[in-house]
């Protein structure tokens, strides 16, 4: 099967699509945020008057919602501006707008902010030096606590021949889209309208309504083209400020983050600390205990999804007869946690895989054989008691082992080959709706998501309709509308676009075909086809032009329509294994096995990735070129998390590296050739058995690189990223005597 040329390619190479940063209106003003100058402290005074004294400037602060939204009460837990206390570095305390950006910036500088500094908490381990005890659940620093178990872990560890206990630490990483957040807001009487670069127009509408205390019906969100999202543009960020400024100014206001602000205010993955104990008896894992401290920044208590969810990835896709897992979401003085492509899973897989490799090495067993022996198989159950559906990871691992064996033959000194696995589940739990409209010449999919770059909307949804109806891709067009008229959808996240919204498209196409068949008086299966210029309905050898089957109103009104809906797929875990908190069932079972060859410079610790192969369980391939492109991009992003990307909070509580020179992304020169292998035949929850492919590719990467580095120079690293400094230090530590963690260097 071939992929169509992306319908947005021509416009994009001419710079002809409008992103959030490109928005403008004839009489618009420019907004700017006033950011707190200290990372944590008590607000003594915020004086907007010096800004307001400038001609043509509006300035708003903590009273903005009450003053500007008709007395409505916004969400008290999520005020747009800091009230009383600044809790994270650069938290917005006020906002201004003016006819030019230069004037807005000048006005922002003039706002007088008096804050009494307080000590910042940035290190979860400093907060709980002896690990949280039972009393920690009541600590104001704990936003959530989760615990699950099955069997008696202590007894199983006690009878184990070998118990491997380790601690891992991973760094915060940021999405860093090339396009910073940007929007243009306008308030027209009771209508609060915002155009914005978002992965979820309906999600932003819900957020804005909640934060400002508005009815959802009075908020309209229109998505622009998105210059990279990666999870960072799912929830609202700038829209409430822009709307309040537009209300105050009485005209449209454009608000965009500078690139520095994008680093400072983005919500992303924060550091993890994980302790693991694994007991082995007769070469098999008998019990595991996993304990997690997840830094969630200033996330609100009770709104944590990440802790229980990440615990599953820390156990990995491996048989674990007896287990106990416990996690704490720990509040620190950082921005709230936010989703970053496969949230926390790359870090968790690094921990799970590196630990498994270490356990295998500790008992003198080949790590890849050890993995294969413990890997889940279809029909078994997860530790939390969920039955495992069709699962291509065992086949992917076998393919990866074959490739690794080939690459290991004749490997130069200083080079190493490693395998990493990443488990994932397509998030089809969130629903959506779509409509299709067919006239004599094309099928149009009407829906409410903008293309964020992956192709999942423009190509993925079209591929579903093409495959269901039989039409060629060029006769299927994906249309977009804002929240005012579009059917609802949850958002472009969780690898769900094709898997969930695609099911709604699929259902709409099926209904349309059924209706056309009824009108044509055929009971057999029907398909659409193109005959010359016209679309025809085919049933066996018979065919009729679609226009002949349309009613008069449909001919005049744009064609025959049908609507489809997708509701979350219900799946359950065994609730008796959950002691506290929220854990989630998987909607399907997917993942990938990756292989990397690296060259390690023992003196500098620099790791060069020489070549890379990725074997992915994808269920069914609907858009081959798009799927490959997702894997290539996801691997590259994972290489950043593995090797160079690290958000550093300094001892003063501030983000120390809010820029591209110090937060280092993969570059054209650093990303190796990437071979992509898509494995079909293990169907998932999406249409035609498709599984999501947006997030899985990033998951195994740090684990894969760590395994390859270990293979190359014998060091076992337990912290991400694998920076030259960490690698060189570990190599140096090996030199005198080796030590228990050392493998024999190549």
């Amino acid at each position, binding site marked *: 099967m071939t*992929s169509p*040329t*992306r319908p*947005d*390619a*021509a*416009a*994009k*190479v*001419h*710079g*002809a*699509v*409008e*992103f959030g*940063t*490109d928005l*403008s209106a004839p009489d618009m003003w420019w907004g700017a945020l006033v950011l707190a100058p200290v990372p944590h402290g008590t607000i003594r005074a915020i004086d907007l008057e010096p800004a307001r004294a400038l001609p043509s400037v509006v300035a708003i602060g903590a009273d903005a919602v009450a003053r500007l939204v008709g007395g409505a009460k916004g969400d008290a837990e999520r005020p747009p501006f800091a009230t009383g206390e600044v809790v994270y570095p650069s938290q917005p305390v006020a906002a201004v707008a003016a006819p030019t950006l230069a004037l807005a910036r000048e006005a922002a500088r003039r706002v007088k902010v008096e804050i009494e500094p307080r000590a910042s908490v940035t290190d979860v381990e400093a907060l709980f030096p002896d690990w949280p005890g039972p009393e920690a659940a009541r600590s104001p620093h704990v936003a959530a606590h989760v615990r699950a178990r099955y069997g008696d872990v202590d007894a199983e560890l006690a009878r184990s021949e070998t118990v491997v206990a380790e601690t891992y630490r991973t760094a915060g990483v940021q999405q*860093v*889209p*090339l*396009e*910073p957040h940007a929007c243009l807001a306008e308030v027209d009487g009771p209508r609060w309208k915002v155009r914005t670069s978002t992965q979820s127009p309906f999600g932003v509408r819900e957020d804005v309504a909640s934060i400002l205390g508005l009815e959802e019906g009075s908020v309209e969100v229109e998505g622009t*083209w*998105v*210059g*990279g*999202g*990666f999870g960072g543009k799912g929830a609202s960020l700038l829209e409430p400020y822009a709307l309040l400024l537009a209300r105050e100014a009485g005209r449209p206001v454009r608000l965009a983050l*500078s*690139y520095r602000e994008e680093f400072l205010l983005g919500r992303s993955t924060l550091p993890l600390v994980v302790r693991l104990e694994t007991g082995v008896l007769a070469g098999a894992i008998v019990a595991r205990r996993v304990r997690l401290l997840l830094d969630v920044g200033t996330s609100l208590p009770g709104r944590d999804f990440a802790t229980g969810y990440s615990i599953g990835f820390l156990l990995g896709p491996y048989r674990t007869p007896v287990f106990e897992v416990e996690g704490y979401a720990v509040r620190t003085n950082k921005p709230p946690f936010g989703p970053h492509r496969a949230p926390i899973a790359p870090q968790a897989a690094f921990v799970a895989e590196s630990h498994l490799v270490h356990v295998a090495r500790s008992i003198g067993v080949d790590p890849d054989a050890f993995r294969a022996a413990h890997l889940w198989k279809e029909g078994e159950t997860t530790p939390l008691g969920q039955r495992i559906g069709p699962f291509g990871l065992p086949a992917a691992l076998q393919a990866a082992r074959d490739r690794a064996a080939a690459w290991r033959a004749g490997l130069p000194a200083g080079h190493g080959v490693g395998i990493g696995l990443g488990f994932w589940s397509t998030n089809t739990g969130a629903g959506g709706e779509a409509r299709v409209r067919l006239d004599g010449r094309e099928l149009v999919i009407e829906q409410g998501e903008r293309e*964020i*770059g*992956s*192709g999942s909307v423009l190509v993925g949804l079209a591929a579903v309709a093409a495959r269901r109806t039989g039409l060629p891709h060029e006769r299927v067009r994906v249309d977009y509308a804002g929240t005012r008229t579009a059917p609802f959808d949850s958002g472009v996240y969780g690898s769900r676009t094709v898997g969930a919204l695609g099911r709604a498209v699929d259902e709409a196409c099926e209904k349309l075909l059924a209706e056309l068949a009824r009108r044509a008086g055929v009971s057999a299966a029907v398909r659409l086809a193109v005959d010359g210029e016209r679309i025809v309905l085919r049933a066996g050898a018979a065919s009729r032009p679609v226009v002949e089957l349309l009613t008069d109103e449909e001919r005049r009104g744009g064609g025959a329509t049908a609507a489809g809906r997708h509701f979350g797929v219900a799946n359950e875990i065994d609730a008796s294994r959950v002691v506290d908190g929220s854990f989630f069932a998987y909607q399907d079972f997917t993942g990938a096995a990756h292989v990397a060859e690296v060259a390690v410079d023992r003196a500098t610790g620099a790791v060069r990735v020489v070549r890379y192969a990725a074997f992915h369980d994808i269920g069914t391939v609907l858009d081959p*070129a798009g799927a490959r*492109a997702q894997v*290539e*991009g*996801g*691997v*590259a*992003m994972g290489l950043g998390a593995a090797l160079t990307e690290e958000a550093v909070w300094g001892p003063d509580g501030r983000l120390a590296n809010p*820029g*591209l*020179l110090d937060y280092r*992304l*993969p*570059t*054209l*020169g650093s*990303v190796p*050739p*990437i071979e992509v292998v898509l494995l079909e035949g293990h169907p998932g929850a999406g249409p035609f058995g498709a599984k999501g492919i947006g997030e899985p590719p990033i998951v195994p990467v740090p684990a894969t690189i760590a395994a390859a580095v270990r293979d190359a120079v014998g060091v076992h690293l337990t912290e991400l990223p694998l920076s030259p400094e960490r690698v060189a230090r570990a190599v140096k530590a090996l030199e005198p005597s080796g030590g228990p963690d050392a493998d024999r260097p190549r």
Partner: protein
Amino acid sequence: MSGRSRSLTVNGRPCSLEEAPGDERLLDTLRWRLGLRGTKEGCRSGECGACTVLVDGEARLSCLTLSRELEGCSVTTVEEVGREPVGRAVQTAFAEEGALQCGYCTPGFVMALTGLLHERGSSASVEELLDDLGGNLCRCTGYVAIRRAVRRARELVP
């Protein structure tokens, strides 16, 4: 500088800089004075390459260029670069090789590669071109398809 005409040429049309402040960056002149927003604003500090344009045929970062420094120069942006054969070949290569996803870095890559091909012409090897594009960042593609597009563009330009 008095006595010189305060203007430059953008995509073949004269553009007056009389009203532009002395510290106005070419990026802002293009995007907000002339409405040519195909040139993308990324980091604004010369680290991402998204704002690359051609100045007298050579690639320049418009975020680090003051417009007044370009008096008398000729600027080409992504909107019009397809009117000349090298730019057109580069755009074709990026579109047909699928060397884009979100498209935000794409104008910068197109302009940077066009500038390099102008500068080096037929003497440029693919490896040299890839080396010199190292300052352009892409967060979506992993650069795999971009490398293909560079090879393809090199073939298309005689």
